[in-house]
């Protein structure tokens, strides 16, 4: 296995007419990692995935996927790619098993091998009971799992998943996370998009945060939290007494709605100071998360 990057993008830009959906982004995905694109709706995540999966041509910049350029060698790239699209597009004319076999045919996989692989994959995503069931009889979570299975029919080196767990219940999300880790352990590289911060934090080795078509930051979840927020956060209910008390104690804080946030290296010390001097009514301490990074970088105001 070579250690050359699996995906390399520089100045990657996509414009739909006058809308610039992705603006000069640069990132590198390494062999064997789970790499995340985190960002709100409209950030440009799907557009980026579509360029990587050779479905949408880029407007400018350079892009190499698995050593090839999507503009010139799409079939060679797509043969080694597993794609979970944002929009569910299973074939309603086939059963679960039929969907996998039909999809395998698009990769020129022989019928016998395809049928065997389809059964294996149904077991992998725990859908063996639904083998001969029509697509419209599946729940949302089952459909997402089946799409994951479909993305694996060609035993891909690189998996691209666009919002793989969107709209799923906790059990279904956990199953998908667990399966993705298993796939990573098998040596596959995984790229996923999500707007769930906890998902990104749990799953990704490295990630980028996107907003408005640009990449704001890149790093591992822990690194980003440390770099942009700090270690721990104390939240206190906002009232005049607390505010003046914090100012007197010289503690830097931020007002977020009806709460006041203090970022600190030691939540214990801040909490003690507050308890002793300010008599707060409600207070909690917690570790800083990606959510804090995100809100800090992208701002708290609701977009759109």
């Amino acid at each position: 296995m070579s250690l050359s990057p699996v995906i390399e993008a520089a100045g990657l830009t996509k414009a739909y007419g006058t809308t610039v959906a992705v603006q000069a982004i640069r990132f590198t995905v390494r062999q064997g990692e789970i790499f995340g694109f985190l960002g709100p709706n409209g950030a440009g995540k799907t557009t980026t995935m579509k360029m990587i999966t050779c479905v949408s041509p880029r407007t400018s910049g350079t892009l190499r996927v698995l050593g090839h350029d999507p503009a010139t060698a799409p079939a060679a790239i797509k043969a080694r790619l597993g794609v979970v699209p944002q929009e569910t597009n299973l074939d309603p004319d086939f059963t679960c098993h039929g969907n996998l076999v039909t999809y395998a045919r698009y990769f020129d996989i022989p019928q016998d091998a395809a049928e065997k692989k389809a059964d294996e994959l149904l077991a992998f995503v725990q859908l063996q009971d639904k083998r001969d069931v029509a697509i419209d009889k599946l729940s949302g979570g089952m459909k997402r799992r089946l799409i994951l299975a479909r993305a694996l029919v060609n035993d891909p080196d690189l998996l691209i998943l666009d919002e793989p767990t969107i709209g799923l219940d906790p059990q279904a999300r956990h199953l998908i996370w667990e399966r993705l880790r298993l796939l990573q352990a098998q040596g596959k590289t995984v790229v996923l998009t999500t707007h769930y911060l906890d998902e990104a934090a749990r799953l990704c080795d490295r990630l980028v945060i996107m907003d408005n078509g640009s990449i704001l930051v890149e790093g591992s979840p822990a690194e980003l939290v440390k770099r942009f927020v700090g270690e721990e956060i104390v939240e206190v209910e906002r009232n005049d007494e607390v505010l003046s008390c914090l100012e007197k104690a010289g503690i830097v804080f931020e007002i977020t709605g009806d709460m006041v946030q203090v970022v600190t290296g030691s939540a214990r010390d801040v909490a003690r100071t507050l308890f002793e001097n300010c008599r707060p009514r409600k207070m909690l301490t917690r570790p800083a998360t990606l959510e804090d990074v995100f809100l800090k970088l992208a701002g708290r105001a609701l977009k759109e």
Partner: protein
Amino acid sequence: MIRTALQFPRVTRRAWNVWHRNLIVFVRTWKVNFFPPFIEAFLYLSAIGLGIGAYVGSIEGIPYITYIAPAILAISVMNSAFFECTYGSYVRMYYQKSFDAMIATPLSIEDVIFGELLWGATRSVMYVAIMLPVLAAFNVISLPASLLAIPLAFLGGMMFAAIGMCFTAITPGLETLNYPAYLFITPMTLFSGTFFPLTLLPPVFGYIAVIFLPLTHLVAVMRMSTLPAFSLSILLNLAWMAIITIVLCIVSINLMKRRLIV
């Protein structure tokens, strides 16, 4: 604009994988698919052939039912391919998102659309293959010359598949596909030398039919085969259809590319 519409698409043999998908779905419902051609042949022959034919007697020395038999074949070729590649393809493209799923695999959009066109033509061939025995049973076609109807069904099928696909590529929605169906297909069914010779009408109808109505040429070659009564004009008919088919296959693929690749 015209240059891109006529750019030669890079189609690979993977297009057959798309064709194969449609075949499997079709075969699974073969009972539903088998009877329409059977019954249609029956209805046309009895109602128009025997019913109206009783009054008409013969046209150009040919019994009326024998005169319309090849037209029934040609109309079926047109309808199967045209409707498969308009309503059928549109549903697969827009509602089922099948094309989106396919182009995430090594299939290109060119492969997908060409596979759909091949499938449309295959529907025509199957329709004709089922109708031929019925026509033979009515003793209104002569064998073995009429077997030529099968390769002709493929050519005509590709032609009408490509015509249909051009409309599919530009239609804003499923309902607007009714326009070409009513304004183009229906008049063509009547004015292409199908149920009466064009020479009965003022000459301008004949010119329009020969220049603009693809069905005219398909009816002509089908009729030469089933009677059989070949003349050299078959070469003109075949050339006209071949050129239109090639050009429209290319144009339809490029229009679809423009629609789907953003």
